C-alpha cells in the first residue's frame, strides 16, 4: 500500500476512524476472499493487521463473501447487495485517459469491465466515452484494467485528485 494513498477497506466497512476500533484483526475476511484481494496490513503503523485492498493489484470482484464472516461488525454483516459495497469511489484522470489526450485511440475498457456497467460507469458524450457516476462502489476493476492507469480509487468523501473528471449523478443514462 502506497503511503501516499489512504487505505481502502473491504466492502461494507464502517467509517475509517471507527474501523480501527471495531476490527478485531481476526483475518476471517482475508481467508473468506476467494480472489486474495483483501490483504493484511503489516508494519507498526496504526493500520497494522487491518484488512485493506489495493485495487491496482487485486480489485474486488464484489462477491460479498467477506461481509458475513466479520464477527465484530467492522464490516456490515447484513450487507449482501454489491451496489452498496461502499469501498470507495473511482476517479478518472483526464490527462491520462486515452479518450481525452491527443491521439486516435478510443477506449472503453473501464466500461466493459465494470461489474456495475451502465450504473457505475456509463457511456456519455453521445454514448462513446465512459463516465463514472456517483453509483460507483470503488471495486477497482476499472483501475486494475485501465491500460493508462488513468483511474484511481479513493475512499468515499476523500477529495478528488487533480485532473479528475467529476462524477455524474447516479441514474444518469447515456
Amino acid at each position: 500500500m502506497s503511503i501516499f494513498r489512504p487505505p481502502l477497506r473491504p466492502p461494507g466497512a464502517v467509517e475509517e476512524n471507527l474501523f480501527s476500533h471495531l476490527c478485531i484483526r481476526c483475518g476471517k475476511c482475508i481467508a473468506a476472499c476467494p480472489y486474495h484481494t483483501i490483504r493484511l496490513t503489516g508494519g507498526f503503523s496504526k493500520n497494522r493487521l487491518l484488512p485493506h485492498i489495493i485495487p491496482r493489484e487485486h480489485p474486488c470482484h464484489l462477491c460479498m463473501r467477506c461481509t458475513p464472516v466479520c464477527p465484530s461488525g467492522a464490516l456490515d454483516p447484513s450487507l449482501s447487495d454489491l451496489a452498496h459495497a461502499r469501498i470507495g469511489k473511482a476517479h478518472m484522470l483526464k490527462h491520462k485517459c486515452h479518450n481525452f489526450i491527443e491521439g486516435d485511440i478510443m477506449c472503453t475498457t473501464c466500461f466493459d469491465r465494470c461489474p456495475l456497467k451502465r450504473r457505475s460507469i456509463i457511456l456519455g458524450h453521445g454514448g462513446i466515452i465512459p463516465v463514472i457516476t456517483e453509483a460507483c462502489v470503488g471495486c477497482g476493476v476499472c483501475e486494475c484494467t485501465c491500460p493508462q492507469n488513468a483511474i484511481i480509487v479513493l475512499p468515499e468523501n476523500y477529495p478528488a485528485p487533480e485532473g479528475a473528471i467529476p462524477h455524474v449523478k447516479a441514474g444518469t443514462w447515456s
Partner: protein
Amino acid sequence: MKYTIYFFLRRLSQIITLIFFCCLPWLYTKDFNLIRGNLFSLDIINIPFADPANSLQVSIFSLIYGGLPGIKILIGAGLVLLIAFLLGRVFCSFICPYGFFSELIHKKNIVDKPESESKNTFLYKLIIFICILLITGFFSYPLLTIFSMPGSMTTAPFQFWAIADGGIIACIITLIFPIIILVFESYIQKRIWCRFICPQSVMLGLFSKILPSKYLGLRISWNKNACSCKKENPCRNACSLALNPRKLTGPERRDCVLCGDCLKECSKHGRALQLHILPKERINHEDKPMDSPGIR
C-alpha cells in the same frame, strides 16, 4: 502417574495448536473451512470464540460510537470466559503459544531459590490493561493488538504465507515484540509477561477467581494433613509463576494456569496437591497459609 499423562496431554495440546496455526493459511488454500481465524477471533465449526480482552475493547468502542457490539464477539468472549470460569486458566497452559515458549524457556533456567510470591501481580496487569485501553481511545493506536501475544503470534503465519506481498518481513515485524520479551524473560529468569503484563490473563483471571471453591470446577487443592514437607518448598520451587500452592484453597485460581508442575513435584513427596473437578471438602478450617511466620 496420572499427572504425567496430564502433562503429556497438555504439551501435546500446545504443540498441536502451534503447528495448526502455522499451517492454517495453507489449509485455507485447500478449502478448509472448519476452523477459521486466529486467537483474536476463532470460529470452530461455526462456534465463535474470541479474545476476551480485545472483545472488551471492541465492545466498549461499539457502545461509545452508538452501536451494539457484534453478536459473534459477545458469544465468543462469553464462551472463553465460561471456560475460564469452569476450568480456570487452561487457555494459558494448553493453547497460548506465548505461554508455551515462555514455559520452555523457564524450564531451562535453574532456579536456586524461589522468589517471594508477589501479591500485586494482578493489580499491575489491571493497570496496564486500563492504560492500554485509554491510549487506544485517545490516540486511536491499536496498542492492544501488540500486547495480545496469542492473537499477534497466530497472525504472523498469515503474513508469512503472503510471500508475494513481502510477507516474510511483515511476519518478522509481528514476531519481534514477542521474541524480545522471551529473550528478556530468559535473561531475568522470570515469566514476567504472564505474571505482570498479559491483558488476556486479566479477563481470564477475573473469571477464574469468581468460582467459589465449594463448587464444581477444575482446580488444584492442597491437603494440609497429607503434606509431608516442612521447611522445604518443592512445589513452590517448581511453579514457574512463583505461586504458593500450599494454601487451603490451593494456588490462587486467578493466577494459576494449571500447568501441573507443582503436582508433578508433589507426587514425589506427600501427594498433598491434587487436581480435581468435583469440589473437595475443606480438611481443616484454619485460615493461615502453611508458610506464614507462625507456622514453620
